[in-house]
């Protein structure tokens, strides 16, 4: 037996305001198929203006236990960590040793050479200790590592990670600071010009030091 739009909507709003956490799917099932599109428009309009319900303790506990919420909060926490911390946390969660991760990186990127695995492991250890410049990590390495560690593809290379760092700088930057940075950059460029040419990078180096496109 179907019900009218106003009856279903009225009851939905009653349940919402009473903190009973109504589910639009349940109410849709009671409305005639021909009225369902109109009903969802009404609910959409209601959601735009609805107050936060007066949840009781049990309802709050259910909200806070929602798996999607918990996963999102955990992802948010992870996202605020530097890449080094994220790699370490994800690796521990995956129950993998650094050497095992290195083996999988070598396999995934078909890295050649007898020393590819120990060098990859060494780079990974440096990465977790925060000794590698995260801006030099290649995008494909970060994507690959996320997959190896069982995380979402953007867990390590998400744009927000860079955004956090950039905004942190912008908030704190003053003209004096900008001038200091400029002078240091000039100094670094001068030293680089005097230094001998670096050894060409191989595939392992490019993954860890070649920058986002490496």
């Amino acid at each position: 037996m179907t019900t009218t739009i106003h009856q279903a909507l009225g009851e939905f709003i009653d349940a919402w305001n009473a903190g009973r956490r109504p589910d639009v799917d349940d109410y849709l099932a009671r409305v005639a198929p021909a009225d369902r599109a109109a009903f969802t428009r009404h609910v959409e309009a209601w959601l735009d203006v609805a107050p936060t319900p007066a949840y009781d303790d049990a309802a709050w506990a259910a909200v806070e236990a929602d798996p999607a919420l918990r996963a999102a909060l955990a992802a948010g926490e992870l996202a605020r960590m530097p890449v080094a911390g994220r790699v370490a946390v994800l690796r521990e969660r995956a129950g993998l040793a650094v050497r095992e991760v290195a083996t999988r990186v070598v396999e995934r990127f078909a890295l050649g050479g007898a020393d590819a695995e120990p060098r990859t492991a060494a780079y990974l250890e440096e990465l977790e200790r925060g000794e590698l410049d995260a801006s030099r990590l290649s995008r494909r390495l970060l994507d690959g590592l996320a997959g190896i560690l069982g995380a979402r593809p953007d867990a390590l290379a998400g744009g927000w990670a860079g955004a956090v760092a950039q905004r942190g700088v912008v908030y704190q930057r003053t003209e004096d600071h900008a001038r200091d940075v400029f002078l240091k950059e000039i100094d670094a460029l001068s030293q680089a010009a005097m230094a001998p040419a670096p050894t060409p990078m191989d595939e392992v180096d490019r993954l860890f030091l070649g920058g986002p496109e490496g």
Partner: protein
Amino acid sequence: MTGTADPPDVRGDAELHLRRYLAARKVGDTDAMATHWNTLFTINLDRFTQRVKIVSLGHLDDEEREEARQRAAILHTTRLMWDFRGVSMGEWWNATKQLIYHACLQEQAARKAISKHETSLDRSRLGDDGDPVSGYDSYLRAEQERRDARAQDAEELKAEIDVGRDFLDWALPQLSGKLREVAIRDRAGMPVEQIMEELGLKQDAVYKRRERYTDRLDELGKSYES
């Protein structure tokens, strides 16, 4: 309208956390930003969930809808927290709606399999000019333009919050008579029995006015966005 039977002003809690988030954003306190952003999201989880269900209805199957909800929730805590540049709850909700739509599109694209009973979200959400309705990326572009155009010092921020930019501030006065009276009481979370008593209406009459005012708000929402 206020009285001992009124529910607590839980909406005020949401605005309090938004204000604290904005204050933390102003000084670059990322831990405090996250604390208040996450609380704001938690408070609004049901609103968010129901919106995902409506947007994805008929476009995604049950499993995909849940995946889209998860995807949108993660984007909310990992991206929108940094990208949001609004100052009011109305702007927060509009940004959240754009993000939900974006996440549903992403989910549909990820699955790459639209069965016969489903239609493309992209195709079904074309605007009057035939262009797809803007998603999260266009929201970011618009926010960037606004960011460029406006310096947000503390006084301006406070003034904007105090004035309020919510759609409701604009729309509610445009509702007529008892539609507005019912809407105001619903928005305060008042139980239907109390609304009936205060306005001298039967339950069915309250329900019919709810249908009419949400219909009117839907219409007003379209002209507000344009």
